[in-house]
């Protein structure tokens, strides 16, 4: 792997060690949490770019469940990052599921269940259509989880079930899962079960926060990254917690440790 593509986020996610193996995220579940002040969607864009363009001959497939924005939005952003989503969609490496207008219908008994069933059936269909050896290369990206809750009219249990099913795919087939959620939604609850469950299930937790000192032009925010994989590795002094700051640009994101920027 050339060093130019490597950055602090990749290191924290463990992407740099796994470039030799077939699946870049290594069957992990990544949860990204952001807030109203600082959007974390750029991490999704970075990961998609990374997955689709890291090595030219890789067979990574991204299944994107878009609840938040239409395709044109992502297409424009990724184009500026140097990744042509439209072309990737043509050759089947980027599968875009437009969930923007989808309501998971609310039956009397079913809650938001039937719609999510259909969605999950869709995911397994995509998974089964991949050749046996390539299933590891699938990454499911969800933007964003709080909108699934809205689509399911608040039946959080069904959404949790859905996410657990998706999570089960990571252990059964080795594919990876990337989710975006907003943690400030739950900050006022005294028992945020939904958020805690998600955090518990995630192997890597990325929190995107504004700086404590407020907005600044050259530092857009900070992101503590907790990588459980790294803390579990034998005798490592690294506790798996990384905290660094970032600055988002149109064609890249700069990551740096606090105070390390000249």
């Amino acid at each position, binding site marked *: 792997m050339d060093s130019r593509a490597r950055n602090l986020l990749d290191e924290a996610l463990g992407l740099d060690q796994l470039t030799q193996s077939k699946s870049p995220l290594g069957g992990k579940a990544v949860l990204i949490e952001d807030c109203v002040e600082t959007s974390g969607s750029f991490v999704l864009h970075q990961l998609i770019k990374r997955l689709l363009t890291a090595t030219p001959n890789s067979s990574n497939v991204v299944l994107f469940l878009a609840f938040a924005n239409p395709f044109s*939005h992502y*297409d424009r952003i990724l184009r500026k990052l*140097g990744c042509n989503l439209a072309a990737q969609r043509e050759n089947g490496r980027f599968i875009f599921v437009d969930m923007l207008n989808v309501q998971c219908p609310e039956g009397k008994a079913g809650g938001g269940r039937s719609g999510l069933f259909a969605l999950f059936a869709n995911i397994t269909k995509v998974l089964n259509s991949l050749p046996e050896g390539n299933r590891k290369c699938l990454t499911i990206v969800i933007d964003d989880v709080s*909108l699934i809750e809205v689509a399911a009219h608040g039946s959080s249990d069904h959404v949790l079930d859905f996410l657990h099913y998706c999570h089960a795919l990571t252990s059964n087939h080795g594919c990876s899962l990337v989710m975006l959620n907003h943690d400030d939604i739950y900050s006022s609850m005294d028992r945020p079960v939904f958020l805690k469950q998600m955090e518990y299930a995630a192997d890597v937790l990325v929190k995107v926060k504004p700086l404590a000192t407020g907005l600044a032009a050259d530092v857009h925010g900070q992101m503590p990254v907790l990588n459980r994989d790294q803390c579990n590795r034998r005798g490592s002094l690294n506790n798996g917690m990384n905290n660094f700051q970032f600055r988002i640009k149109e064609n890249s994101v700069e990551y740096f440790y606090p105070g390390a920027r000249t």
Partner: protein
Amino acid sequence: MAATKTRTSSFSRNLPAASSAQSPEIKCGPNGTFLVSSGIPDLDKTLGGGIPLGSLVMVMEDSEAPHHMLLLRNFMSQGLVQKQPLLYASPSKDPRGFLGTLPSPSSPKDDKSRSHDAEQEKGLRIAWQYKKYFGENQSNLDGQRDNKQEFSNEFDLRRPLDRHFYTGQHVDCISTKDLPNIAALQERCTSFLSQFPRNDASIACTGRIAIQSLCAPQCESSNMEWEMLSFIRSLKSTVRSANAVAIITFPSSLVSPSFCKRWQHLADCLVSVKAIPDEDKELAKLLTGYQEIVGFLNIHRVPRINTQVPAVLEATTLSIKLQKRRYLVLECLNQAPVDGSSGSSYGTSGSCSGSSSKSGSLDF
């Protein structure tokens, strides 16, 4: 907009067709967006030129003061003056009556007197005001005067809008009280928005939706939080695929905190308004032009369509001023200089310290 057909190369010519065949009320924005005016030139400028077509603007109301109506009125008037179809929903019994209170665009004559007046004021205050605010103001006023149909107008709050602007077919008023449920409102919005499908070629016509006090206590739907959320979500996605802009004001104090956050996440552009107390001696000492200030406008989120880069504003708190009791003006807070050498002039104010500490440009 250019996304429907597949371009396999990253390098392709930008098609200028869309930009050439458009009316003056629409401006080309960054990242392939098109902007319309919010009706307040200062707000347009702060948001980066205007409100991008396809975005949802949410205004968090002050529960004690009707400042959100100022924004709403200018937004609606701007659309009506430009003959854009309008859908207005409000919890009041007679929403059409509200159209009678809309402000009228000020005539060029008034404009001149205002700019002249402003210049005079500047002369008096120049001793310690920041110079950079001048230039912007000036160019802004100059841009107003040229032709009749323009991107944005100044509105004179004391002159009602001519009746012929809002008596036509293109204005639809709904009282949310009359509707059986939120789904009915959603239907009306969807059918309204279906007039403005988005296509690549040109923008024939743009629409505006203004929803006042969604979830207000007099509405039936105030206790149906998930229904409201899914209404906002579906409105957002239909607006996104149409050539229209929607503005929703809502009483944030009435929505439970966690749902309020959800609402905020759904907004493309999020602002809040806050009134200031009438006779606050401390504030009066601290802020210049305190007599004209009626409240503060906080900008929490700037529309970020088609881009991942966050906008870093110079100031997120602006003061809402009524100049000569006629014109709605937004200005950065001008704090009286405390002591040039101390350097701690930011965030020292009393009741507005929470907002002003953020507003000051932080020097790193």
